[in-house]
């Protein structure tokens, strides 16, 4: 459509020019003159041939509108508010939906030229938000592009993301946040059974204790000199003493052989190339002979994962705190746990209860960038989307093309009539 407008302007500009006829000279010796091209272009203050100009401009604009996919809109909502949440939150949506809608109303009130009546709130369910809120942004991008290309009346797309209080990683969020061309309202929601405490700011003052019977236990070397906010005891015995439950002490059961009770023996062991925790990956070869089976009674929360997403360590709450179980086979004498790459694993295991995961509190802070504080424009998604430019209703494009063709025919007839005259 823009190209058609530019072409129409060019036509109008050309109508300001005229090919000037040279003055007539009655010359008896004209027979000796060799014919030449003496046309001269001159500017005129007013466009000439106004009717021709109107026909040409109208034909161009109609053709441009037809090819651009003109639509006859019935006055749909000017703004769509997307509320993206994890599929796991569907069951307790009553808890967070009012807050998300309130966020939508607040954003509608601050936007110029929109009203709550001209806004449609849509819920979008996404998977993986529990792991990384970036998944919600990806789902929102996809949905916004679909809506923007399907409904030309939509001018703005507001976004509210319902995120858990703690997630495995925020890397995806940080990556995809810049791809969303506007403000993102974050509503934090804690699902039932999640650990609510966030003691990450507690000072680390208690040394970590490793109880082992091995002489060269690599875990001892890995945690030597480390301190934690809460007392942590890492038990390397294969069988956990059920009576061991000191007050405010986090007991980490990490048997040096075999696996904790929640892990089941695999039919055949396999190899795995790495472990990740707290957004730090430890890349090293491991032999995996057990797999974690969730125990609904204990409501275990994974805190360390294999590179394929399987659980390495879990945490469950106890009456006096929490307990952790780890299946991470490390060969005696290995230094794989001592490097910086293993810092994520170490910190996840000795962090206070509920602190093994990353808090999403920082995501709710509004960015300083002014462009990221406004509601996203729908045209950003239209340009990003590869949707076809189809008119609505479907017969609008052929109708406009036929009218444009008729105008061009009329222009030809008019021009010939002028030439003959």
């Amino acid at each position, binding site marked *: 459509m823009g190209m058609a407008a530019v072409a129409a302007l060019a036509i109008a500009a050309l109508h300001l020019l005229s090919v000037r*006829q*040279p*003055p*007539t*000279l*009655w*010359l*008896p*010796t*004209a*027979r*000796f*003159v*060799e*014919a*030449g*091209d*003496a046309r*001269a272009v001159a500017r005129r203050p007013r466009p000439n041939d106004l009717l021709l100009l109107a026909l040409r401009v109208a034909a161009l604009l109609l053709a441009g509108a037809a090819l651009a996919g003109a639509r006859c809109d019935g006055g749909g909502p000017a703004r769509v508010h997307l509320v993206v949440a994890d599929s796991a939150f569907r069951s307790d949506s009553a808890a967070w939906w009012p807050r998300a809608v309130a966020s939508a109303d607040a954003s509608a009130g601050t936007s110029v030229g929109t009203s709550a009546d001209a806004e449609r709130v849509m819920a979008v369910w996404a998977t993986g938000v529990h792991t990384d809120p970036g998944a919600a942004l990806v789902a929102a991008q996809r949905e916004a592009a679909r809506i923007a290309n399907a409904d030309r009346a939509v001018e703005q797309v507001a976004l509210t993301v319902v995120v858990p209080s703690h997630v495995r990683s925020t890397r995806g969020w940080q990556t995809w946040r810049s791809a969303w061309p506007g403000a993102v309202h974050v509503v934090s929601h804690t699902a039932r059974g999640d650990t609510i405490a966030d003691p990450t700011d507690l000072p680390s003052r208690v040394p970590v204790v490793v109880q082992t019977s091995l002489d060269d236990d690599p875990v001892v070397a890995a945690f030597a000199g480390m301190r934690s906010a809460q007392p942590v005891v890492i038990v390397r015995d294969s069988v956990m003493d059920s009576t061991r439950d000191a007050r405010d002490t986090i007991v980490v059961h990490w048997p040096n052989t075999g696996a904790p009770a929640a892990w089941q023996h695999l039919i055949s062991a396999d190899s795995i190339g790495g472990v990740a925790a707290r957004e730090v990956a430890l890349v090293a070869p491991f032999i995996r002979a057990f797999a974690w089976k969730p125990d609904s009674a204990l409501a275990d929360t994974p805190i360390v994962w294999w590179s394929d997403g399987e659980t390495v360590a879990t945490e469950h709450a106890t009456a006096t705190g929490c307990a952790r179980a780890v299946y991470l086979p490390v060969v005696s004498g290995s230094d794989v746990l001592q490097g910086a790459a293993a810092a994520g694993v170490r910190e996840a295991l000795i962090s206070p209860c509920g602190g093994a995961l990353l808090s999403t509190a920082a995501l709710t802070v509004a960015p300083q960038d002014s462009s990221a504080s406004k509601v996203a424009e729908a045209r950003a998604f239209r340009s990003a989307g590869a949707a076809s430019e189809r008119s609505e209703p479907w017969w609008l494009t052929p109708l406009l093309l036929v009218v444009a063709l008729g105008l061009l025919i009329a222009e030809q007839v008019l021009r010939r009539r002028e030439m003959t005259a």
Partner: protein
Amino acid sequence: MSAAGENRTGHGALLDAVRGLRWPARRAVGAAPPGTHRSSQRGTAGEFTEYRLYRQGDDPRALDWKLLGRSDRAFIKLSDDRALLTTWIVVDGSASMAFPDDSPSSRSKFRLAREVAIGLAAVVHASSDPVGVIVSHAAGVSRVPPRTRRGTVPEIARVLEGVSCGGADALTPSIAALSPNARIVCLTDCLGDQDALLRAASALTAAGAQFECVHVIAAEELALPAGAHLVRDPESAESRQAGVVLPARDRAGYAKAFAEFRDATRQRWRAIGAGYTEVHTSNEPARAVRAVVVGTGSC
């Protein structure tokens, strides 16, 4: 011409400039009343030229009786005759002769032709030769028959000043009807049907007429006006419709073609035994008259 006559024509300066000019015939004139031009006839004028043996049929009055008495041989005395030479001045008044428009800074071809015609008529009339004018113009053809009486030149001037240019070239029928025992001066721009005119002139010249072509050329035809123009020929119906675009630059082609045309015209007129003089509107009419009378070819 008397002073009153000069005043009547309004060409006093021109007539003063050509006063005293004599325009002898280029060849001996045929049988004609006695005049100032050398005649091809042998007569009994007082000025003796030679003797010739008497032949039967000679006029006995021309016998030299004294010589017959002394030598018993019959001779007759011969002498050259002098004859009048009628001069027709034919002026082309076609549309092309109106170029360029008369203005204080320029003179049209017809205006120059008219003044040269008056000057030549004055020269002829001063020699007591009959002089007449034929002019073709927009309204047809006007004629002043050859006369020697007083007031002929003012009458010719009046006729020439009373016509306006227009139409195509119609000289040929008028010229073809003229007597060959005359001097015919044609003032034209040679842009009409020159082939027909040359055929008529050739026939007259062969019959004894003394033909003079005065080719009138406008200075603006030699140096075209600056800038691009849509050029139209006033005598060509086709050109009047469409015209030809004259470019603002590169006039070399035109200059070359026009020069070739003038050269060809001069050669064709001289080839039939006619005199040819090229006169330009930038020159004074008196100078053009002198060029025609003297026969310099151009001025």
